[in-house]
């Protein structure tokens, strides 16, 4: 009987250890979605942090997003236009772009870039705060790190993710169109191509694209927060960064996959 109990204990400990982060991440994401619309959560300190985080996350990543979008425009969209034109399947251009670029590639790449440019910075900051005992100072002064740091950053990253996602899609399509026009196999205007993409979007696509981007932004912030503040005092940032990166990437991929399956 004791042996069976020990087996159950070991099994439970192993399951708890492996699911702990995922459950906390889900709970924190839910808490952000619940609290974000509540005016009471947005004191001026939280608003200041929101403005700072939004500037940092959009301003810090927009250059990288544009460069990546141009590369995708050249490598993927122009190629796609060429081969679809060659195969006489121009009518499929909108559908292909929506399925590959809008629904899958844009949210993933934006999430990765947001994680690299802002998530790792946040993780570094939270980990340092934890290591220095600043979390204790905040709580002693009645300042809730969730309300003051996570909530504004999560909302800022969500809006930044959506903004950067829109920039990414538009720049990628325009680049692909430009290249196609220069090479002579794309005869439509840029607005015409954009219009074909919009026409190919079903209502699910209009829901999935922003939902993915907004959720990915929240997940990047929440994952950084949990990894940074969940660290032991002795953990250094060099150890936390790869751990936080892997956790956030996994969360982004799972979120993207789940939303793609739902819609």
């Amino acid at each position, binding site marked *: 009987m004791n042996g069976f109990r020990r087996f159950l204990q070991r099994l439970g400990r192993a399951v708890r250890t492996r699911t702990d982060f995922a459950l906390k991440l889900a709970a924190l994401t839910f808490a952000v979605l619940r609290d974000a619309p509540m005016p009471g959560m947005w004191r*001026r300190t939280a608003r200041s942090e929101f403005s700072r985080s939004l500037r940092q996350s959009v301003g810090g990543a927009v250059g990288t997003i544009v460069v990546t979008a141009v590369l995708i425009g050249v490598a993927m969209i122009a190629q796609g236009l060429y081969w679809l034109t060659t195969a006489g399947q121009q009518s499929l251009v909108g559908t292909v772009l929506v399925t590959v670029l809008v629904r899958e590639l844009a949210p993933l790449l934006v999430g990765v870039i947001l994680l690299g440019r802002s998530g790792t910075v946040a993780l570094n*900051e939270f980990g340092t705060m934890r290591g220095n005992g600043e979390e204790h*100072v905040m709580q*002693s*002064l*009645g300042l*809730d790190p969730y309300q003051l740091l996570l909530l504004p950053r999560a909302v800022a990253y969500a809006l930044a993710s959506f903004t950067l996602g829109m920039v990414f899609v538009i720049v990628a399509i325009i680049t692909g169109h430009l290249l196609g026009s220069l090479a002579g196999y794309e005869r439509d205007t840029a607005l015409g191509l954009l219009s074909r993409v919009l026409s190919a979007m079903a209502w699910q696509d209009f829901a999935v694209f922003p939902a993915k981007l907004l959720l990915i932004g929240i997940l990047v912030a929440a994952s950084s927060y949990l990894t940074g503040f969940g660290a032991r005092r002795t953990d250094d940032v060099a150890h936390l960064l790869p751990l936080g990166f892997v956790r956030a990437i996994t969360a982004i991929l799972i979120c993207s996959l789940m939303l793609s399956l739902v819609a």
Partner: protein
Amino acid sequence: MADAPAILDLQQAEMAPPPGEHAERPITLRLMPGDFALVESRDTARSSGFADLCCGMADLVSGSVGFLGQDWALLDHQETAMQRGRIGHVFAATNWIHLLGVDDNILLPQRHHTNRPDAALRDEAAALSVAFGLPGLPMGRPRDLSQADLARAACVRAFLGRPALLILEHPLQTRFRDMMPALLNALAAARDRGAVAIWLTGNDIVWRDRSLPATHRLRLTAAGLAPAPLPNRMKIA
């Protein structure tokens, strides 16, 4: 004043010991508006533990800690945060959030807990900074300021607004002559408004200073918190 409720009321409060350590003796302390408790504590970790107990940050094994008539244990998350906003605190170890400038660090609790305009807060903080010997409200990051200026800035944050309780963990560090007059003036003003002050010190110069207008002189050790009046002056024949 006799019927006024206690600002801080510790009744047989016993903290949960850290893993592997023995529990310390329960603490009883009742501070009324205007009281000033000077506490001798040679151990900064014990000082911080006591400070945590006073502001409801410590897990209790038994007893209770009341602040402004409310038991910390019975307050929800929001109420706890709001009550802590009435405490001015100088910490023994870390005082600063490294992401923010010292000015933002100083203003942060008041900006969060009150609706006072930023300009009024800045004016009051600047006046307090000057009173504590700074040229004005310090603007740099905490790492850019000297330890002496950070000690002054920590006092500015603690006294900013109208704190009901002041917890000063070793606030002077080694700058007794520079900061003592300003600190005593600020303390007197706060006590006149009805605030309670707890000054934790491990230094003999502060502890033996008879000019400090303490209403309670206490010693914090592993045996708990006990009254520790200064010995009478020896008379020279």
